[in-house]
């Protein structure tokens, strides 16, 4: 994989500072965000994880400019979006941001294909390019067979993939996805992760909310959100060059540690590999020879 910029390099494409948001009034007031700071570099792939109700969807909606914060700021490519009028905000969003809603929000009376083409039509993309892009995404996500169906006739997992295709269709600078694999089995989850990987490799910044750690692990960075605050940030790194999943376990000796140390990437924030262990650690107990 090509080297990715770290969050500290260059101008962030998303910069959030001191973001707070509450819903409702005094006795029934629910605080969703209690001062969130987050900076995302262009081309970065960030996963947001945390227990349900911790504010993940609220944060994503604020990043998309769908809602306004009580205090704090959201900058998109340097532009303060909370300062924009609703109309200008919608324009900025259409231009730069693709959003996959947790509840999909497909247009019920449009076919799957028309839903996917919607954003490109609005953006004035040519007819043939629009068709080709929609076809490509529907193929990639295994939806070609239902291109002419209405959303209501699809399974939850299919609707979810349509929502992903629709958000990715315009090749937005920033792709925001709320639980994009929430309704999917492991095969379809793999397909969606592959698509996100392709989109990210194509230069798109990806911020996704997920509670599937296997999905989160594919990102450049995992942001842990808890009770409306960022409590931790980590960079998962794979250690394929040291031989499978055992590379992340206490190794058989100094060799394994050396291999872990030699894995490339800006992993300054990552934890150090654990000290050398006994060598017989085995995830599945398959070594019971």
């Amino acid at each position, binding site marked *: 994989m090509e080297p990715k910029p770290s969050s500290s390099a260059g101008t962030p494409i998303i910069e959030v500072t001191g973001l707070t948001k509450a819903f409702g009034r005094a006795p029934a007031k629910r605080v969703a965000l209690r001062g969130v700071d987050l900076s995302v570099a262009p081309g970065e792939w960030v996963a947001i994880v945390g227990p349900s109700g911790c504010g993940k969807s609220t944060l994503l909606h604020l990043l998309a400019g769908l809602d306004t914060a009580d205090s704090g700021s959201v900058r998109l490519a340097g532009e303060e979006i909370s300062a924009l009028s609703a109309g200008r905000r919608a324009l900025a969003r259409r231009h730069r941001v693709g959003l996959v809603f947790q509840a999909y929000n497909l247009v019920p009376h449009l076919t799957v294909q028309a839903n996917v083409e919607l954003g490109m039509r609005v953006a004035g993309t040519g007819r043939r390019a629009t068709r080709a892009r929609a076809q490509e995404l529907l193929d990639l996500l295994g939806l070609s067979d239902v291109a002419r169906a209405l959303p209501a006739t699809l399974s939850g997992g299919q609707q979810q993939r349509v929502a992903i295709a629709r958000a990715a269709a315009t090749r937005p600078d920033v792709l925001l996805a709320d639980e994009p694999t929430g309704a999917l089995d492991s095969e379809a989850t793999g397909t969606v992760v592959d698509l996100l990987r392709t989109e990210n490799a194509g230069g798109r910044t990806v911020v996704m909310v997920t509670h599937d750690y296997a999905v989160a692990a594919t990102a450049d960075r995992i942001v842990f959100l808890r009770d409306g605050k960022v409590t931790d940030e980590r960079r*998962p790194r794979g250690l*394929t060059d040291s031989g499978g999943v055992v590379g992340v376990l206490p190794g058989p000796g100094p060799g394994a540690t050396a291999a872990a140390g030699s894995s490339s990437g800006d992993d300054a924030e990552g934890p150090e590999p*654990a000290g050398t262990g006994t060598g017989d650690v*085995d995830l599945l107990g398959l070594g019971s*020879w």
Partner: protein
Amino acid sequence: MLALLDRGPAHGYELKRAHDELFGDVAPPVNVGQIYVTLTRLERDGSVVHHVEANADGPDRKIYELTEVGRKALRGWLADPSELPVGKSDIVLKLVAGLITDGTIAPAVAEHRMRCIQALRTLADLRATKRPAGQSRDPGGLNEAANTDDTRATSTNTTGGTGGTGGRTDLPVGLGDLLREASVLHLQAELRWLDLVEERLSGRL
């Protein structure tokens, strides 16, 4: 080990290689020494026998093969109930120890969570490597490894003349995926449990 030998006679190193090719994505390479210890024990039990074969390129080699006793032991083991993935894993023991001794285990939980996530990342990277983008099924997985192994096994056979097939792996398509998936599911379950631990015991870790 018995299953590998059931495929044909082999020497220790061939068995090591076959193991590592089968489980390389999900388990550490097995130590050759460990193989010989096991073979010695199996021979004592009457499950395997060996003969020495001259090797033009190096020291003579012990070729092991399965006996009828060994074949029976293999069938018996296959029919035995398998262990359940429950109980006293290392992290469970640490949690309990921490709670009954007032020792703090929050760092251990955080560290373990990150290691699980890194293991998932490694498995995801392996999946991405072994399954070219746009392809929905792992066509080779271990079969790719099997092909390269076939070449090596052939050259071993011509130089060493072992006639052994224990090192060969021609496996059903998708087995690599299945082994990786087993690890993914176990890791996901472990991580969900760690979240639960944190949620229920917050402040007491």
